[in-house]
């Protein structure tokens, strides 16, 4: 038995190494291979299902129309369990063994950051890392020329929110409840910028990833007399904080960052969540722009269940636009250099899902403006224009 097992293992090892491809890695006459690294079994595995599902929906749509320059796009998804070490292993596997053309949508800040040395070594572009931390678009970092960030950073989101709050109420006392990790660190950066712009001081309270109890933080905001509280969580945090505050008869205005633009916030918070404001960086899936219309059509066509539709599924769908456009601009005989060059020619490019995107040699920041959504009657309603 032991011998059989070891023979099987060894033979898989060698058999997998035996095929070789010609030309640019990941490109054949009929296919383009894309690598995607998601959290499929870690703390945010929900995103690991939704984001690639959204991307695949758009890629299938493109493939049905004949693909990009006659090539079908195929996406391989690997797991990193939100662990940077495993993220590197997965990237090595995709680049060296599966020979993907480029990487796309690596979820999480530290898993994406950990890939920088590999990107530099192998020259593989990483398109639309699925993290909103603005450090991904920092051109002074290692391998920055290979990374094309699409999202508005958490720092920008925090700044826009604080600007908005002070516009409406110059005497507002602002509180920020941040997650004590890379997500929160980036939000704190934006908060510090806004603090120096407006010469105010924001009351900051931290919570741990996965915390369930927010009584302490809510009490502190109450004691500090905060009239406006920004919650940098995902779904559980804003809902629990709003409910806790309600129970204590403390009624400030609540705001969240982009991850809180989840339909479940409205669903779970119910009446308490009424008036909750959060920024967003793409055309909202319910709006009438061309991208969202296509999104709803494709969702209906593919029978996507209602519980899957939402900003994360839409996020995969939206970022796939940038990927496909990049592949188009890489030309009939794509190489990795041509892909980078092609993306850098994007100038006020209208995708239908994002506001105009511009990339250049020295600017890999995608969306640089936001608008605000408010929960009204359980629905997200746009209340402002694009702001930056």
């Amino acid at each position, binding site marked *: 038995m032991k011998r059989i097992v070891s023979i099987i293992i060894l033979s*898989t090892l*060698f058999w997998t190494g035996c095929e070789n491809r010609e030309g640019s890695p990941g490109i054949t006459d009929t296919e383009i291979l894309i690598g995607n690294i998601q959290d499929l*079994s870690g703390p945010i595995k929900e995103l690991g299902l939704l984001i690639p599902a959204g991307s695949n929906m758009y890629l299938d749509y493109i493939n049905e129309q004949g693909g990009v320059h006659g090539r079908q796009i195929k996406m391989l998804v690997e*797991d990193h369990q939100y662990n940077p070490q495993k993220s590197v*292993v997965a990237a090595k596997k995709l680049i060296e*063994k599966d020979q993907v053309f480029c990487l796309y949508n690596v979820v999480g800040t*530290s898993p994406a950051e950990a890939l920088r040395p590999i990107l530099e070594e192998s020259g593989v572009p990483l398109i639309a890392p699925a993290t909103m931390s603005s450090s991904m678009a920092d051109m002074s970092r290692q391998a920055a020329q290979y990374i094309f960030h699409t999202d508005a950073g958490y720092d920008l989101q925090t700044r826009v929110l604080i600007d908005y709050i002070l516009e409406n109420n110059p005497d507002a006392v602002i509180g920020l409840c941040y997650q004590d990790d890379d997500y929160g660190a980036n939000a704190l950066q934006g908060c510090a910028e806004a603090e120096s712009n407006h010469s105010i001081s924001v009351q900051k309270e931290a919570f741990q990833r996965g915390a369930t109890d927010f009584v302490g933080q809510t009490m502190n905001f109450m004691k500090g007399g905060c009239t406006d509280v920004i919650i940098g969580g995902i779904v559980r945090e804003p809902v629990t904080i709003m409910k806790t505050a309600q129970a204590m008869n403390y009624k400030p205005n609540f705001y969240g960052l982009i991850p809180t633009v989840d339909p479940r916030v409205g669903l779970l918070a119910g009446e308490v969540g009424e008036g909750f404001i959060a920024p967003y960086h793409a055309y909202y899936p319910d709006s009438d722009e061309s991208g969202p219309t296509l999104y709803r059509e494709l969702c209906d066509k593919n029978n996507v269940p209602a519980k899957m539709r939402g900003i994360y599924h839409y996020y995969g769908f939206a970022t796939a636009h940038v990927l496909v456009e990049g592949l188009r601009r890489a030309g009939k005989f794509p190489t990795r250099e041509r892909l980078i060059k092609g993306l850098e020619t994007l100038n006020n490019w209208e995708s239908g899902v994002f506001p105009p995107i511009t990339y250049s040699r020295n600017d890999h920041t995608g969306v640089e403006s936001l608008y605000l959504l408010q929960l009204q009657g359980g629905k997200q309603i746009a209340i402002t224009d694009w702001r930056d």
Partner: protein
Amino acid sequence: MKGRYQDENLKWIPILIIAIYLFPFLIKNATFSYKYYLYILNMAGIYIILTVGLDLLSGFTGLMSLGHAAFLAIGAYTSAILVDQVGLPFELSLIITPLIVGIFGFLIGFPALRIKGMYLGLTTMGFGFIVKRLIIALREWTGGSAGLQVSKASFFGISIKNDWDNYFLIYTFVILAVIIARRIVQSKLGRAFMAIRDSEQAAQASGIHLAKYKMIAFFISGMFAGFAGVLFAHTSHFISTDHFDISLSIFFIVMVLVGGIGSIYGAVLGTLFIVLMENMFIPLFKDGLSQYMHIEAGEFQVFIFGLIMLLFIIFQPQGLYGMWLKMRIYWKLFPFNPRKRFT
């Protein structure tokens, strides 16, 4: 000299060392994706240095540690700061960092003088959390939770650029670490450790200074982890607190246990087994299987990994090294083996 290794066949050791150095050439010829395999082997190599040290502490001295990822983290961050911010050469950091981590081990040794068994295991686990928090709090040097970029190493003028170079650097130190650990185990120090593990009272009665030897065990174990940390930082070029999760500490203990607790070779085998299983064999197995049916990466892989571990521990509780010893005896006695003893 001969008396030291009575139980083993010494002539295999040089052959094994040569084989380790030749191995990358073999896989470079066998497969074009050799960098992927080398990367995983490098990772295993770094972990081997650490688990060998952990085995000295947990396997030989009987002091349970669930905080070894923290030692690795201290080593990695210390070296990154020393080399990149203070400007020390890498070679010097290789000496200083393990000493610093050893001192941290020494500090953790203090509670160990009073706290025993699982209490100690969970105290060290707490130490892991505390270190992680300290790294975030010292964000001016460590970059906080955003992580830290680390420069590439250069070892006596040879710059260590890629997985290929890393392999030779790491495995040189793996061989060194294993040899040193073997020497420690077979010295007076090692026997004192084992005496403490078997019975503290008996050890004390026969004149072994408990406090002194426990502290030494923590110091040595910390030094091994510090060494691993230096190599970790300068071969992966990016470190963050997410790398050194509590689950990693638990995995280190699992690696030692799978190999067979209380044997240096066991720690090596166990680490190789777990790292290769998790990062190479199971993904490849999944890739092979997904050609015939639809399988998503992720949970399925984790499930298979857990299942293999559980079955392994149920059927081979003595670990890989115990399995190897049994097999060796089996072949030695081949025609006359009493069936029942070797199930």
